[in-house]
Structures are given as structure tokens and as C-alpha cells.
């Protein structure tokens, strides 16, 4: 009998090329995804060193961060954005890399495009110069966010130097209550384990809840692994994974499909394999969760009050609560529910997929965005946009008073025209609530699930979607 192994170990071993002098592993990266923000400097370094791209056919590009979602025609109003667009086009043409440019109809946020095209597959290694690369782990891939110098390394050698990670299994067992979503699961996990609780780990998510989750829900959770400090996050591949991949443009077909499924299955963690840590969470204990502070671990359930620094156990905790409340302009010990919002943002690589818009549209029909609230709905990819439009969801959002936009990162990070102004407070389905994240140095972000964003949009306040939309009765 061979020793049982985790998916992480199996994928690592299948891709380990050799041990480097410093003890790290030269790890083969099967799939390299690039976008306009972090790759231009890497191509510059490549040129300086006179190197070529080792496997252009395993490198895929898209444009997401800087694209305006309200302007389709080039040149873009922002010349810097246009320059980044041009640079990516030039680099892809020169090095023979597939680019899902806007004209292809397949452009979108890199973490939405990879899965959608069937490029993201189980048992593979993936790297991208973007921290939310962990999203791809939903397929049982080991996926790393990397820096620009490492992008250069992967371009030049299709490998990177990396130390092996530990694996923490996180079981979420039982059933989620109505109105509780994948987003709440990951906000809860980060709240419990902390924003750096995952340092040195890959998170393996499993248990009843993940077994039942769709691929899109798994992606939402894996996406935010990095917010919990984990270097990667994944779910073991199963029938849900294979069903999602079947028939996608880059999925194997015919006889190759059957072989691929057999191979993919073999990567799933073996029963009884070793985990460096195991955490078990009861699904029923998870409530709709919202952040109150300036990192994604500062979350509470919608029924709770924002913390009071006076109650903090440690000095450190007290000062971080004080800092967060001062920035968020929230008063200690007050309920988060009822806090007035200015902007509602639905989108991002966390929650910008078809199912996110479908779920919201189901409840939003016939409702109106509250007066004074700016609400935008931004599909994560052109394909998601098209799917939504075919189903008439764009109408539902527009009728409710949301602006329906073109695909991109939009207000998740403010490298495009979608930005908060002054100290506006945004109910956001994205993944980061850092100071200034959404474009204004004093702008404020409350992270939540898409349906909670819709509830905030229609009431103009942080609200419990279960009450606003009578979710329990549906």
C-alpha cells in the first residue's frame, strides 16, 4: 500500500523539477495567466536578459484591472490605461501568447476567464501575477499568486522557485441556513482563523457544504484564501468539477476527456492522508457576515454590534479596533445594521459570475435602489455579461436602478474610472476592504455577499437580506 497523500502533495510531486541550492523546489507551472498590470515589467526584464517565453502555448492573457467598464471604444479616456492595453497587446503578439482581448468576446477578470475557458483544470499548477489566483484551486488545481519577478521566471522557464507548503483541512459540515452564501462561509473562516492564520499553509476546503457547492461557490471561497493569509486554497475535484469542465473550449474532448477524468480523480486527496492541521466548522453557525473594519478578518454577523475597543482583551486588539472604527467612522458598540451606504458594488472575481447575478435578480425583481445610492452591477467577463443578457438579467438590474456595466474589475480596486469619492461607504461584493482600496483615500468598504449588497442597495443601509427579501420564505 502506498502512503495516502493530499492533493497538494500529489500535485506538488508531479510538478517538482528539482531541489534548488537554497532548499526550495523548482516547480513546473503548467498554466500561466497574465494581465496588464503586473506583466509589462516582467516582459521588460525578459527583453533585458534576452530571453524567450518557454511555453507560449501555456500562457494566456486577458485585460481586466484597467479597462473602463463604461467605455468600449479605444482610445480610452485615460492614456495610462490605453498604454497598458497597448503594451499587453504588443507583448502577446511578440511572444506568441493567446490574448483574450475585448474583440474576442472572451475578455474578463483573469480568475473568471480561466475557469470559463476550461483552462483551469484539476491536478495542475497555475500561477498568475495576482493574489486572487487561489480562485482556481476550486478545481483541484494548486494555484499561486506571484510577483512580477516570478512572472519573469515563469515566462522564461515555465517554473518558479518555491518552498513546500503545509496543508490545513477546513471542513464545513452540515447545512447552511437560507440566505447564507459561499461569501459568508469564507468571511466566517477568515474571521475565525484570522487574516494571517493561513501563513505557510494551503487550505483544503471540504465537508458537506463544499460537496454540495457549485463550482462558482467553490471559486468564491477559494478566491479569498489569500485574505486569510493562505498561499493557496483548493477543493478536491469531483463530479461537480468534471460536469463544469465538460465541453469548455480548452477542456479535453473525446477519448482524451475520459483519460483526463481518470487522471483528475487520481489527484484528489486520499482518505487518511496527513494534514498539518484540521479545522471543523458547523455550517449552521454561519450567519450573513459583513465586515466592519479595514481588513477582511474584521467581520461580524449582520445581527452583531461593531466591537467596542474598551472591551478588547489585548492592547493590540484595542488599537486595531480603534484605528478601524476611526477610519470607518463607526461608533463602538453600535449595530452594523442600519449603517447608511452611498454605493453598492456587485461584481469582482469573488462574486461576478452568472450565479451571483441570477441569485440577486431572483429577489431584486420589482424592487428599486434607494434614493441617493449609486449601484453598479459589473459582470466578471464578457461571457458572463452575455449569459446574463440572454436571460434578461441586465433588464432586472437596470429596472431596479443599477447601472449595468461591461466586464472588468471595476470598483474592486480603482485602477479604472469606477472609484469611491471622498468618504463614501460602499456595500461591496468584492474581497478587500483595506483603507483606500476602492479609490478614495478615505473611501470605506463593507464586504458582504451579493444578496446583502442588493439588500443594502434597496434600503440604502447595511441590511439583513433575509428580512429585506423575505429569504426564509422562498
Amino acid at each position, binding site marked *: 500500500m502506498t502512503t495516502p497523500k493530499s492533493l497538494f502533495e500529489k500535485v506538488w510531486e508531479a510538478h517538482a523539477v528539482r531541489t534548488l541550492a537554497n532548499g526550495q523546489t523548482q516547480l513546473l507551472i503548467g498554466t500561466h495567466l497574465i494581465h496588464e498590470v503586473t506583466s509589462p515589467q516582467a516582459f521588460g526584464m525578459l527583453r533585458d536578459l534576452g530571453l524567450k517565453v518557454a511555453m507560449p502555448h501555456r500562457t494566456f492573457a486577458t485585460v481586466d484591472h484597467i479597462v473602463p467598464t463604461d467605455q468600449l471604444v479605444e482610445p480610452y479616456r485615460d492614456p495610462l490605461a490605453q498604454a497598458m492595453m497597448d503594451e499587453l497587446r504588443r507583448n502577446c503578439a511578440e511572444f506568441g501568447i493567446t490574448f483574450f482581448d475585448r474583440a474576442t468576446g472572451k475578455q474578463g477578470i483573469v480568475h473568471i476567464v480561466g475557469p470559463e475557458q476550461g483552462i483551469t483544470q484539476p491536478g495542475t499548477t497555475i500561477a498568475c501575477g495576482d493574489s486572487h489566483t487561489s480562485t482556481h484551486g476550486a478545481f483541484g488545481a494548486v494555484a499561486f499568486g506571484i*510577483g512580477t519577478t516570478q512572472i519573469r521566471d515563469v515566462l*522564461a522557464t515555465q517554473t518558479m522557485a518555491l518552498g513546500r507548503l503545509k496543508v490545513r483541512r477546513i471542513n464545513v459540515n452540515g447545512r447552511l441556513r437560507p440566505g447564507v452564501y459561499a461569501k459568508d462561509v469564507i468571511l466566517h473562516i477568515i474571521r475565525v482563523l484570522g487574516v494571517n492564520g493561513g501563513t505557510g499553509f494551503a487550505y483544503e476546503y471540504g465537508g458537506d457544504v463544499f460537496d454540495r457547492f457549485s463550482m462558482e461557490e467553490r471559486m468564491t471561497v477559494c478566491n479569498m484564501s489569500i485574505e486569510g493569509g493562505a498561499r493557496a486554497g483548493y477543493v478536491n475535484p469531483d463530479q461537480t468539477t468534471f460536469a463544469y469542465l465538460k465541453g469548455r473550449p480548452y477542456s479535453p474532448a473525446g477519448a482524451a476527456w475520459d483519460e483526463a477524468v481518470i487522471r483528475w480523480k487520481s489527484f484528489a486527496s486520499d482518505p487518511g492522508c496527513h494534514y498539518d492541521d484540521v479545522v471543523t466548522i458547523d455550517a449552521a453557525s454561519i450567519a450573513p457576515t459583513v465586515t466592519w473594519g479595514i481588513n477582511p478578518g474584521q467581520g461580524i454577523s449582520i445581527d452583531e454590534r461593531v466591537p467596542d475597543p474598551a472591551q478588547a482583551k489585548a492592547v493590540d486588539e484595542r488599537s486595531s479596533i480603534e484605528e478601524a472604527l476611526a477610519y470607518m467612522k463607526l461608533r463602538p458598540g453600535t449595530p452594523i445594521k442600519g449603517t447608511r451606504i452611498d454605493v453598492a458594488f456587485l461584481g469582482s472575481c469573488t462574486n461576478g459570475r452568472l450565479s451571483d447575478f441570477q441569485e440577486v435578480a431572483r429577489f431584486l425583481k420589482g424592487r428599486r435602489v434607494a434614493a441617493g445610492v449609486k449601484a453598479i452591477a459589473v459582470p466578471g467577463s464578457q461571457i458572463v455579461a452575455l449569459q446574463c443578457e440572454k436571460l434578461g438579467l441586465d433588464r432586472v438590474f437596470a429596472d431596479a436602478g443599477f447601472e449595468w456595466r461591461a466586464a472588468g474589475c471595476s470598483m474592486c480596486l480603482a485602477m479604472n474610472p469606477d472609484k469611491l469619492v471622498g468618504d463614501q461607504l460602499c456595500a461591496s461584493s468584492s474581497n478587500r476592504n483595506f483603507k483606500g482600496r476602492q479609490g478614495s483615500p478615505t473611501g470605506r468598504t463593507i464586504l458582504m455577499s451579493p444578496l446583502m449588497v442588493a439588500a443594502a442597495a434597496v434600503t440604502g443601509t447595511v441590511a439583513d437580506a433575509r428580512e429585506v427579501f423575505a429569504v426564509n420564505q422562498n
Partner: protein
Amino acid sequence: MALAKISSVTGRAVYVPGNDIDTDRIIPARFMKCVTFDGLGEFLFHDVRKNDDGSDKPHPLNEPRFKGATILLSGANFGCGSSREHAPQAIQKHGFRAIVAENFAEIFFGNCTTLGIPCATAARADIARVAAAIEANPATEVVLDVAAQEVRFGGQRITVEVRATARDALVNGRWDAIGELLDGLPAVQSRARALPYLAA
């Protein structure tokens, strides 16, 4: 490509207090609209250093007495957030050669090491001792001895830790992995042949 062997960094230091200083704080995203890293140093910590009208906010990096510091001291979970190398690049382009903090976010740590910026971890109380010394006398010479894993300053010393793989890479001048990775290319090709999804 011969790389410098970074066994120590000597210079003046500046203490930027706070935990969870994230990469958006280090370099706000709007400054990442660039196709080279040149010029990022100017925008380091921009939004906590500058008012909207361009005037200075109170911040250690704005204080003339700490100008020219090459060692950055900070709190816990430094560099959390994005994988953007723009953050360590901004730190390096601003003139910093080393960082000492309670601990570091994973990707940030790796990015720094690859750029030859040692990231040393130390106990909070010890960082506070260094901070107190430079507060009393900003001209204090601070030595981060990567090899010996200690910081020496004004006749005192504290123990720090530089993770073994990073220490080896820095001290032996192999912090930029590209040369070694390129040497491995034949082995990469044979490894790739065993993985059907990599077929052209």
C-alpha cells in the same frame, strides 16, 4: 549573472508603527498604472503621507531626521494583501535595503527576497527597543546582520530571524532564482513530457 551576496545591511533606520500594513497602503493601486517600476519610490505610503493638496501629513517618512534611512521597521503582518511586486519595488526604489517587522505576509516576503531585500522578523519588544534608540538619536547606525540573525544598534543587539531559505539565498548571492531556474531547463522539459496537459 553574479548577484551581490547580502549578508548584512548597514544604515539608519525608521520605524513605521502599525500592524497589517497592506500593499494598498504601501503603494495605492492608482500608482500601478505604469509599465515600468521606475518612479514608484516617490509614491511609497502615498495616502498616509500626503493630503489631497499634496502637502505632508504627519508620517515618519516625511520627517527630515529620518530621510535617507535604509532599514524599515514595522509591526505584524507587514505587506498583507496583494501580490503586487509594486509594493517591494516602491520600498526599494525609495531607498530601503531591508525590513524588520514582527512578521510578514507570505507573498510579500517572497517578492522581497527575490529583489534582494532581507525581511527579518523580531519580537515586538525588541523592535520597540530599536525604535526607541532611533527615536532618541535618528543618526544611530543600525546593522541587520542577515547571516548572524541579529540587529546591532548603538551598542545593543537584538535577535532576529531570517527564514533559512531566504537567508541562504541572500547570503550566498542567489536571491534572484532566474540563473538557477534556467540551468534546470532540460529537466523541466522532461518533467513536462510526463504531464499530458502541457502538450503543445
